[in-house]
């Protein structure tokens, strides 16, 4: 594409910077990636939506998927390794520091009291993205049934989510295939 060769270290450093400033989920990261990529001429604003779409459809953490894809665009497989390591290193170091610190402070009465307030709130912070996703994903009665069934199976019957996902992938694939829409 006529781009000059970017050094692996540079790729690592830019993605480490992006990783440091992402708080919360992958979507918060998109504007930051956009700015960093277009400023350097690495990925154009027109290319980015495709990369985001692709990263959402692959399993795993979206932010990491974007790094893998962008790194690959820049320098092939070595580039994607540099980008991946870059985007996970800041989290890794920060979390390690906190984990070591927290294991020493967990029994501190102040910390204990703070976490008594935090724990119920975390549950709501899991429910909110779920509701938002449900509004987009559950567009018919059978999709609601699928959501409720997987909730009940995992929460009350201790079925592993991995089995549920495998069964749903096979079912969704076969139904789409045999309904003939695929052939058109």
């Amino acid at each position, binding site marked *: 594409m006529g781009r000059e060769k970017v050094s692996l270290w540079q790729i690592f450093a830019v993605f480490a910077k992006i990783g*440091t*400033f992402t708080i*919360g989920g*992958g979507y918060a990261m998109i504007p930051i990636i956009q700015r960093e990529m277009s400023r350097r001429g690495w990925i154009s604003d027109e290319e980015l939506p*495709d990369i985001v*779409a*692709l990263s959402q*459809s692959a*399993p*795993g*953490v979206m932010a*990491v998927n974007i790094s*893998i894809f962008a790194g*690959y665009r820049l320098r092939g497989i070595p580039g994607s390794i540099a980008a*991946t390591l870059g*985007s*996970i290193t800041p*989290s*890794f170091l*920060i*979390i*390690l520091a906190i*984990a070591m610190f*927290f294991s020493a402070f967990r029994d501190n009465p102040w910390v204990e009291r*703070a*976490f*008594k*307030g*935090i*724990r*119920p*709130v*975390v*549950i*709501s*912070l*899991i*429910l909110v*993205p*779920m*509701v938002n996703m*449900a509004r987009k994903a559950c567009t018919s009665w059978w*999709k*609601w049934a699928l*959501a*409720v069934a*997987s909730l*009940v199976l995992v*929460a*009350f019957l201790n079925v592993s*989510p991995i089995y*549920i*996902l495998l069964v*749903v*992938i096979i079912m*969704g*694939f076969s*139904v789409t295939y045999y309904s003939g*829409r695929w052939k*058109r």
Partner: protein
Amino acid sequence: MEAVSLILQLAWTFFLVGAFTFGGGYAMLSLIQNQVVVAHQWISESAFTDIVAISQMTPGPIGINAATYTGYSVLYEATGLHWMGVCGSAVATLALVLPSFLIVLLIVKFYTRFRKSTLFEGTMGWLRPTVVGLIGAAAVILVVRTAWNGCVPEFSLVRENIIDWKSWLLMGAAFVASYWKKINPILIILGAAALGVLLY
């Protein structure tokens, strides 16, 4: 020797989590929780809840944060050694990323065809609602414990997370603040920490 087998189990567990996470960080949390708290019982519900809170507050993708933290906790709890914890977090994080890495590189090769495929979109139409249910289950498991006595379920509250009526109040307030008021989750967690110190 025991530590080595634990590390191998951890690597396999997080490889599976990475391979089966469809739908972002919260979907990943439900898988991590199921593997680590329910299936292997490496850590307790309340310890996992703390990990989720810290993962939301610190920079970086929430799934990576939770994997790093969980990897550390599992090995540190088992051995009492910080450096083993560091090994655990490195193994968990790299194992988590590996499937994405392989799959992204694979689809890069023929991704325009892949994206537009009706077959792919059709399968995703089934997967997305399922993931909604899995995330819901993650929240439910942090509130209710189910024990099966033959065919009769026995429900009990997870007392570490839901201590009393004030916990329900905080939970409701956080939902309102996040869903309707769109307040930043970090601010909500910090507010809850302050209220925790005042109330308990």
